[in-house]
């Protein structure tokens, strides 16, 4: 049991851009703007021009329902859009169309790897809204002389996923974010690599104080850092006999600190009221059909991998934590020994990729199969296999070329045998020591065999051959 000594309670509001949709949420503008000039994907609707009216994108509603179902939420009978009124230059209408009463889904949960094993995090609600435009400041936000506005992002479909305050540490918060992102990628509604794809606001309190809301967090690592900083800050305030007040704080990603925001920006009365330009949407009938189309989600896939391929739960967890990795593994496991594949992908390849900051896209399934094939036929050593993987990542080529180029082919058994006989003859002292019970003496004999075969022998095999000849 994790006893949570400081009484940390963390809840997260995650804004997910449904950026795999073809069009924005209330107009026909394309969502594929990331490589295009500013303000090139706009129309009267997403610019909020006078007289333009929003029209709901049904595909966005379907995607939102899909996410709701995957988060184990209840889908509402009717859903309704509201106006959240506030002024900001990135908001072209002076209000944001969002949801308030009757959100599209609510009351769900997901399981994460908690401080003390499996931990359940409640999902309060997941509701739809529109993304504002993007502000680009010259220099820093407080010193900038002007701000440029790009409305390409304006009107992108967002899903705000609000969690219950169920996380008890920054680590759990990060795991929650990882899991959420993982699920979203499995659902194919979201590409987490695009700018602004996922933004986080965090609510955090510790025992004896009120909660702070931290805004402007744009990465999982940032969330963990911001929360760690905030716990220390709140503890210090309490230790000095101060009061932790209810407030909104801004996360400075570069300095890794949170700062209190001016009260002017804090005291909002959003004056929510139903959006008169969008009629309530009856969605009760939609969920069953969408449920049919739900793909296998990470938890289910993990269980299946353990069962179907007989691999360890740790391997299955690692392999399913990223959709592409899971697909890669399955493609390899179909044509090679699944257990060996799991070991080489999880324990070797993944580490080498992480070290180089690469994704699984940088490695070919065929190459993994050749490496495993070479190992299985005992043509290369394990060290040789690692060498091949590293060379493939650093220089490219094919495993066969690398084997030839580097002379990695494992030497024949009789060569090992000959080398062993020579080693025994040339090192009488070591032989005597071994026979006298000094097992370590065997190591110097193995070393001699390796030297004679220029490292192409398998160390384990050499050991066995030596033991046979000495025994």
């Amino acid at each position, binding site marked *: 049991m994790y006893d949570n000594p400081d009484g940390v309670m963390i809840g997260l509001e995650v804004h997910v851009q449904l950026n795999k949709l073809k069009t924005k949420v209330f107009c026909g503008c394309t969502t594929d703007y990331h490589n295009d000039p500013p303000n090139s994907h706009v129309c*009267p609707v997403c*610019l*909020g*021009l*006078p*007289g*333009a*009216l*929003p*029209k*709901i994108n049904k595909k966005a509603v379907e995607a939102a329902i899909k996410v709701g179902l995957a988060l184990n939420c209840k889908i509402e009978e009717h859903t309704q859009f509201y*106006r959240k*009124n506030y*002024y900001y*230059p990135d908001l*072209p*209408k*002076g*209000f944001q169309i969002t949801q308030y009463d009757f959100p599209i889904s609510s009351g769900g949960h997901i399981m994460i790897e908690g401080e003390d094993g499996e931990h359940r995090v409640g999902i309060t609600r997941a509701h739809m809204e529109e993304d504002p435009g993007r502000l680009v400041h010259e220099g820093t936000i407080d010193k900038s002389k002007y*701000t440029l*506005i790009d409305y390409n992002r304006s009107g992108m479909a967002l899903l705000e996923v609000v969690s219950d305050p169920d996380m008890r540490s920054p680590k759990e918060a990060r795991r929650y974010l990882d899991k959420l992102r993982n699920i979203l990628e499995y659902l194919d509604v979201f590409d987490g690599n695009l700018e602004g794809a996922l933004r986080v606001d965090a609510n955090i309190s510790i025992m004896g104080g009120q909660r702070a809301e931290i805004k402007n967090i744009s990465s999982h690592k940032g969330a963990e850092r911001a929360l760690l900083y905030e716990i220390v800050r709140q503890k210090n305030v309490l230790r000095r006999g101060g009061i932790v007040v209810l407030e909104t704080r801004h996360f400075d990603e570069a300095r890794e600190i949170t700062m209190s925001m001016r009260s002017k920006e804090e005291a909002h*009365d959003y*004056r929510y*009221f139903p959006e*008169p*330009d*969008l*009629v309530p949407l009856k969605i009760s009938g939609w969920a069953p059909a969408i449920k049919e189309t739900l793909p296998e989600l990470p938890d289910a896939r993990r269980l299946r991998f353990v069962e179907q391929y007989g691999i360890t739960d740790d391997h299955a967890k690692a392999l399913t934590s990223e959709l592409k990795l899971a697909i890669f593994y399955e493609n390899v496991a179909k044509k090679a020994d699944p257990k060996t594949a799991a070991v080489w992908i999880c324990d070797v390849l993944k580490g080498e990729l992480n070290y180089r900051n690469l994704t699984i896209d940088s490695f070919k399934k065929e190459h993994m199969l050749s490496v495993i094939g070479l190992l299985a036929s005992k043509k290369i050593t394990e060290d040789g296999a690692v060498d091949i993987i590293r060379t493939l990542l650093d220089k490219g080529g094919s495993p066969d070329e690398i084997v030839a180029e580097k002379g990695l082919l494992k030497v024949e058994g009789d060569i090992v045998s000959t080398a062993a006989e020579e080693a025994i003859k040339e090192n009488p002292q070591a032989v005597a020591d071994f026979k006298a019970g000094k097992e370590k003496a065997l190591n110097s004999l193995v070393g001699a065999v390796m030297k004679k075969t220029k490292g192409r022998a398998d160390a384990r095999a050499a050991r066995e051959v030596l033991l046979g000849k000495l025994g």
Partner: protein
Amino acid sequence: MATINELNERIHAGSSEEIVAEYLERIDSSKLNAFITVAKENALARAKEIDSEGHEGSLAGIPVAIKDNISTKGILTTCASKILTGYVPPYDAHVIERLKEAGAVIIGKTNMDEFAMGTSTETSFYGPTRNPWDTDRVPGGSSGGSAAAVAGSEVPLALGSDTGGSVRCPASFCGVVGLKPTYGVISRYGLISYANSLEQIGPFATTVRDVATLFDVIAGYDARDSTSVDKEVNYSSALKNDVSGLKIGVPEEYFGEGTDENVEKTVWNAIHTLEDLGATRVEVKMPHTKYALSAYYIIAMSEASSNLARFDGMRYGLRTEDSDWHTTFSQVRAAGFGDEVKRRILLGTYALSAGYHDKYYLKALKVRTLIKQDFELAFKDADVLIAPTMPYPAFKLGEKIDDPLSLYLADVDTVPINLAGVPSISVPCGFSHELPIGMQVIGKHFDEATILRTAYTFEENTDFHTREPEGF
């Protein structure tokens, strides 16, 4: 005053350009101030094109004036507000697309109360419009420019918008026909919102037939407006000179305190005329009418406070000296909006605020439901309802503008119709001291056909619509 039929004879002979030029000349020499923008070159060019190439549309070559809160591509659109100085929309409203397809010639943009907030067209940044029947009097509002232009023979057809009576009131004051359709029948795409849940675009003309012809062109489904209804009806074919068996409900609540004696008498005479033509009168009760005005203003102002938030000077319209965002934005709005608009934004903001939301906004929505029920019950017995459009004829310029409450009270007979979302047409039914009086014929949801038929029959059997203001 010329009707579409009369103009068509000349247009078929290839003289649309000549007709447009004549109207342009009348606008040019007018003292009414009915137009904010005259699209002279565009209009003449389009008319010329129609003369040379011909056009099959039902409004081919006919000039139409557009209220200045309807988005017209390439033509200044101001809502009669300083804040939209220089705003030229890059797109056409749905109704403008329809008009262009039908061959109509957009002749200009008409004056109105700023952002359609008013009953007299006196709150316009571009100065008041005058009533052709007495140029010392208001034309009604907020679509005063459109009604005055039609009454003053500056254009045969015009579009207005009706949020709480803004088509019917000026139709009544100017002695022309004006229709507020069922909510959802005409797409609002491109209509600059004042109060979205209440308003509809509506046609003006001098006859019921011309209103129906224009209505046929602009009505119909538009996917871009989620509140648009998918119903295609030919309204012109409903125009039959026959009210036999028609059951008319006369809600006494619409003849209450403050109603001018002559208005009351004139509307009753009109009802008797229809009875003589075969209609029967049935008793109806609309007990919640007295709450309509308060509910209307709370809902309209609440929606307006949000709708008008977009006017911040950042992307279009008025821009004052640059400072930081909060300052610039406040300066633009302080300089750009007139007093009445500011008053409504403030009241609407207040009504939606935490702590007051339930007391005002939610309560108004509940009243709205009760008003709808009143209409549903009344229409169980009656086919149409008839009432005065306005409690009195046109008042003098400046008479009420400094007393907002008395101006709001003028809308007492028109706002319940918008709260219920039902259709209503105002037709001339008599005069009081040489000023026109309008009666409204109110129908069931989507039953424009019956109110058009009733109004048409009345028109066919009377001659009030043929009278013209002197000197126009």
